[in-house]
Each structure stands twice: as C-alpha cells, then as structure tokens.
C-alpha cells in the first residue's frame, strides 16, 4: 500500500513500543516519524518499527530514519526494524544501519534478540549471498560451510582490497581511493592497472565458478567499487561491535545478558583484525578500535566473574586483557590482588614484574603509586582488601 505514512503505535507491557508503518517512507514522513517519537514516553527503552507495509523508501525517508536514530540515541532507546522487505533491507544495509539497528527480514523471529554469532548483527535480514568472512584474526572466507582459500592462498593485495572494501561505508569506495590506499604514491595509471589485476584475483576467491556480471560479489560502476549488497551474509567485525554495544546497553538493567553478549564478542575475536596484514595502514585504526573493544569486554567479564565469586575465572579474563594491552595498570593491580586473595603470592609478584617491564618498554616509565603500594602490601603478607577491589573494579571496569 502506498501513500502518506501511517504510524500505528502499540505499547505492550515491558517498556517497549512497536510502530506498525504503512505507506511511503519518503520526504514528508520524516516529520511524521519525529512527531510519533515525541509522543512516546521517555520510559520506552526499545522501539520496534514494523516495515511490512512500507511501500517506498527513498533518500528523504533514510534521512528521517537517521533523525529518529539520533533521537533514540539521546534516550538510550534500542531500535529494531523488522519484517523488512528485501529491497528496503538492502538499502538500509547500504547506508550502514546494520551497525546501529537490529534488522530483521520477514521470516525472522520477532521479539527475541538474534544470536549475534549466527545472525550477523542484522545483516542476515538483507543478505542473499552466502559468503562468511572472519577478519578478526587470520582471514577466513567460507561459503555455505565450504572452506574457501584462507589467507595463505589469497594474494596479499586481493586480501587488502577485500579488507579495505569491508571497512568502507556500504562496502563501497572510489577506485581512486582504493588505488591510493593500496599503492600510495604510485603512478595513477600503473595503480589502475594493478587494481584491475587485483580485482580479478579477488573475484576468483569470492565468486562462485562461472559467476558473471550481476552475480559477481564485486560491482564496479562510475568510478566506484563495491562488494555487492547482500553478497556477504556474515562479517565478524560488525557482529563483534554490535555485541559490545548490546552488552553496554544491557549492563545496568540485565547484567547476565550483558555478560553473555561480552562473552559472544570475546568468542568472535580470534586475533587482531586482519592479522595477516599488520603493516597495511588502512587497517590500523579499526584494528586498534577492535582491540580496545576486546579489552573492555575482558575487563567487564573479569568483574562479572569476581562478583559471582569465581576468582579463578576473573583472573583468567584479566590475564587475557593484559596479554592484549600489558600496560593497563589498574587491571594488573586487580590481578595481583586476586592472585594474593587465592593464595598465589608468587603469581602476584610475577604480575607486578610483568607490569614493570611492560611500562618500561612501551611507555618508558614505572608503575604508579597505587601499583607500588599494592605490591608492597602483598609483599608484606597483608591480606588483600577485596571490598575495596570490588568498588574499584565496578568503577573502572
């Protein structure tokens, strides 16, 4: 059904709201969305938009949805778009909504959160392809359960081009930008020739045998390159970040569910982002962001285990967090105290020494006063003050 957008609001018990949309989500409807939003009470913590009867969605409608997302962020309200027709799902995926909103297709369950390790952070709603790409760690590309060539057999430039496209908004980049990223400083004509050869290599990896034209995973037009919308059914990086965001939102209201989301993120993280290409500049920023996300998840899981009285598991999470970033002085102190609390003074001392070495090597400095005092207390045999540790972990984890 087309025409002006109609919004039917339902407020079931439990703090959520559902909007059933019907008509066209175009220019005038952006204001309708905001008006309906203003009529929602501030207590609404989750809003589901049912797209099943939305006929047209254009760029003005997208702008309206972005304004809604801005407003929802301000109230810490989660958005879910469900019963998305495939054409709308592809457009929303192209814009990047899958990174901020749960997207569900017509056949997907309503109400229950998708399993982040299988659902692809909502991208599954739009995906018609079957490529699964795991880039947190050595590159793994699979298709419908079949192992595709791993990093060892994907040529370096093809791997870098794939990663570069995966990190772009809408998996789309201009050819000029791709050339500049892969061959910085090279003669433009030579870079374009290299890009053609690299594209050929990458298509051999990503495409089914015999795939041509529109079936190819990579589209090129008008000076731009794009991984075809929907060709990638699952990509671990957005799933990882989506799990972290969900955990952060659930942390106060539902700590058990939050911990499960953090654990899901930690399971997805097999190693550093695009670990096969440690020196390729475009990967550096996203890699550091993922590393910080992992560290955060591990610290919060350490806290969750500590609060459940499972000190050994808490120690294990802290050890892993420190393996990722060894100069976290507070985490090192918590580890020392937990070792001491479980009667492992020698381990506590080793944790302190590792901190000293890491700080000297990476920061050319020494541990601060708090770490020195903790070490002195442990060395003197004084029992650790776990209540104080609990307060500190809650404040800083």
């Amino acid at each position, binding site marked *: 059904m087309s025409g002006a957008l109609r919004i039917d609001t339902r407020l079931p018990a439990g703090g959520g709201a559902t909007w059933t949309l019907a008509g066209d989500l175009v*220019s005038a409807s952006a204001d309708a969305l905001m008006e309906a939003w203003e009529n929602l009470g501030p207590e609404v913590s989750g809003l589901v938009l049912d797209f099943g009867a939305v006929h*047209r969605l254009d760029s003005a409608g997208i702008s309206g949805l972005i304004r809604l997302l801005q407003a929802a962020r301000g109230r810490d309200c989660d958005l879910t778009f469900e019963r998305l027709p495939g054409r709308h799902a592809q457009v929303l995926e*192209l814009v990047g909504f899958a990174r*901020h909103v749960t997207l569900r297709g017509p056949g997907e369950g309503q109400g229950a959160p998708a399993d982040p390790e299988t659902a692809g952070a909502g991208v599954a709603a739009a995906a018609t392809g079957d490529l699964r790409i795991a880039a947190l760690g050595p590159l793994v590309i699979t298709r419908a359960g079949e192992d595709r060539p791993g990093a060892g057999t994907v040529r370096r430039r093809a791997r870098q081009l794939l990663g570069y496209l995966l990190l772009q908004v809408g998996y789309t980049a201009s050819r000029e930008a791709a050339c500049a990223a892969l061959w910085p400083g090279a003669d433009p004509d030579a870079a374009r020739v290299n890009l053609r050869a690299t594209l050929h290599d990458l298509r051999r990896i990503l495409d089914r045998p015999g795939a*041509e034209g529109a079936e190819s995973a990579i589209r090129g*037009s008008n*000076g731009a390159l*794009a991984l075809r919308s929907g060709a990638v059914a699952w990509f671990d990086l957005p799933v990882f970040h989506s799990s972290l965001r969900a955990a952060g939102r659930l942390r106060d209201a539902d700590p058990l569910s939050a911990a499960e989301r953090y654990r899901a993120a930690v399971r997805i993280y097999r190693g550093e982002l695009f670990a096969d290409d440690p020196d390729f500049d475009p990967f550096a920023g996203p890699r550091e962001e993922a590393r910080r996300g992992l560290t955060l998840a591990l610290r919060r899981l350490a806290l969750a285990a500590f609060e459940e009285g499972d000190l050994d598991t808490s120690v294990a999470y802290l050890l892993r967090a420190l393996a990722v970033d060894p100069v976290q002085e507070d985490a090192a102190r918590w580890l020392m105290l937990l070792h001491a609390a479980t009667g492992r003074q020698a381990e506590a001392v080793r944790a302190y020494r590792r901190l000293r070495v890491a700080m000297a090597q990476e920061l050319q400095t020494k541990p601060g006063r708090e770490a020195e005092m903790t070490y002195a207390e442990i060395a003197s045999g004084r029992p650790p003050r776990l209540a104080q540790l609990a307060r500190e972990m809650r404040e800083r984890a």
Partner: protein
Amino acid sequence: MYRARGAVNTLAPGGRLVVEMTSHAGWVGGVTALAEELGLAAGMPPARAEGVAAATREACLNAIEHGNGGGTTQPVLVRFEPSTEGLTVTVEDDGPRFNPPQAPPVLEEQIDGKTPARGWGFPLMRHLSDRVEVRPRGGPASGNAVRLTFLHEGHPPAVEAVTAG
C-alpha cells in the same frame, strides 16, 4: 504538470519517451510510476522495475532540489530510452552545475550531528542502477544531465570490465 513526447505502449528499443515535468516534488510520483511501467515493459522483473522507479525518483528529486534549486519555473526533463541492453533514464535540470559526491556520506557522522542527515540520493542511484553518469547539459551554467543505465539481467557488465581502469 507533465508534457510527454512519445507513448509507452509504442516504445520499443531505439525509441525515446520524453516527459517534461514541473520542478516540484509533487509531480515526481507520476514519473516514478511511469519509470516502473517502462521497466516492466522492457521485460525487467518487478523487483528490478521497482529499482528503476526508485532511482528515477532520486534523480528527479535531486534535479528539483539541487539542480533547479527548488525553483518551479525551470522544468525537469526525463528521457526514457529502451535498448536491447536495457533501459536508460536521463534526468535533466536547468540549474547551475553540480558535482555528485564520489563517496557516500558517513552514517556515524550524521548520527553524531557532525554532518546533516542527508546526501543519500546518489548512493541510492548507484546501488539501484548499473551506471550513473553526471554531465553538463549544455553550455556553461546551463544545467545537468544525470543518466542512469539499467542493464537486463545476464547482460555482460560492461560497467565493470570497461570502466575498470
């Protein structure tokens, strides 16, 4: 207001249908519906024809807002040209030249309010069509022509092979 030259039911490969439209968003719906009908008439599956309509809509809105700058005195011309390869839609305005953005906006910057929540027209056109070209319509400061190409399924993707360099 519309003024058309050509007829849908006699439009064949090699033919042309030109619609002159008042530069106002209220008239875009009719052209959009026509674009979908022509996509179907050209033998495209319904989903593809919907894409033709959606991309044409974006090009028209762009011509009205950015090309003609919101003025209603300058018309928007929409040319539909079917061929054996597919369908080409060209949308022309009378306004000052514009350069389409090569890269799509960054959603996160728009959510954070660093940039306005707009600018998705060309990314949508590129997503929905096989090729988007923007050219000056005539002499200096005399308008823009946005040409959208929709190839039939299975047609060799000349866009990739030819423009790869």
